[in-house]
């Protein structure tokens, strides 16, 4: 997965990049918040791991800009903080749209877990967006395209993606049609 990493400290940036690459991700490194924003504008990435304190544009304001960018898929934003980060900074970050926090120096196992959670949430977010915006449906059989070239029955798709169960019944219009057909076949 493509991840944007924003970190101004050269040593930490090498450790962060190498760690994420070892997890199998493709990392784009920005050396400060403004560079990260320029990179994101050119190519939005679904996961951002950013330092809090950076010259120019800090992590909180980077997150704020990403959240305000129109027509952008949901981006999971992890903020790297210090052990001495104030609670007001955490509140400000939360209000700006930060999804998760990690203190530096990073615990690599925890970073792996956080990225895994991020990927799961992004999958859900894509499903929700797809449901909310537009579901490709066959005009004849009313099967739904699941986005991976499989066509599923509407009931199956809804059950898998939303957990909705269906109780089957018949609407008055269909009832009338079915009765008419039965009468016709009886004659």
């Amino acid at each position: 997965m493509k991840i944007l990493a924003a970190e101004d400290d050269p040593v930490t940036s090498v450790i962060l990049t190498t760690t994420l690459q070892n997890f199998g991700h493709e990392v784009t490194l920005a050396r400060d918040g403004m560079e990260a924003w320029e990179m994101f504008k050119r190519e939005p990435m679904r996961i951002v791991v950013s330092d809090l304190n950076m010259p120019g544009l800090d992590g909180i304001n980077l997150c704020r800009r990403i959240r305000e960018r129109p027509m952008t898929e949901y981006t999971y934003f992890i903020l790297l903080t210090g052990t001495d980060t104030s609670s007001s900074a955490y509140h400000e970050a939360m209000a700006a749209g930060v999804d998760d926090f990690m203190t530096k120096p990073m615990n690599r196992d925890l970073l792996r877990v956080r990225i895994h959670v991020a990927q799961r949430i992004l999958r859900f977010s894509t499903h929700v967006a797809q449901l909310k915006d537009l579901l490709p449906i066959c005009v004849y059989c009313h099967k739904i395209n699941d986005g991976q070239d499989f066509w599923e029955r509407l009931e199956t798709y809804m059950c898998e993606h939303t957990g909705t169960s269906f109780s089957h019944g018949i609407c008055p219009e269909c009832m009338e049609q079915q009765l008419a057909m039965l009468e016709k076949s009886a004659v």
Partner: protein
Amino acid sequence: MTSTVDESERGRKAGIDDAEPAVDADALADLRSLQLESEGDLLSDLVALFLRTAPNQLGIMGCAIEENDPAALAAGAHTLKGSSANFGAQRLQNLCGEAEALARRGKTTEVAALLGPIASEFQRVMTALQSACPTPLP
């Protein structure tokens, strides 16, 4: 002589003994484990990078004190704090954290008194890191 006494006193206030290792062996082992077999010696690369960039931060801090620029001073101390934390250089990290906090409150003259201890501790960290590297630094 006075300066040495002050530095020692500051170390005691920070609750750190002079005999305490300058860097943490577990932190270095953790960085070694990050190494991919196919690549070069990552720890040596990280140490070389730190030894190349940390003096710049010390320089930035010195200039910021001369120019009475608390924002630049806090930024320099913050970066050095973050870099040194990666190697488990707890004492250097604490001193830089103290300098950063003072700078954020605009107390540049008080940070000036910390520059000596920070520079001394950096020397100790440098020596420890150089001896911990399995291959000569690039």
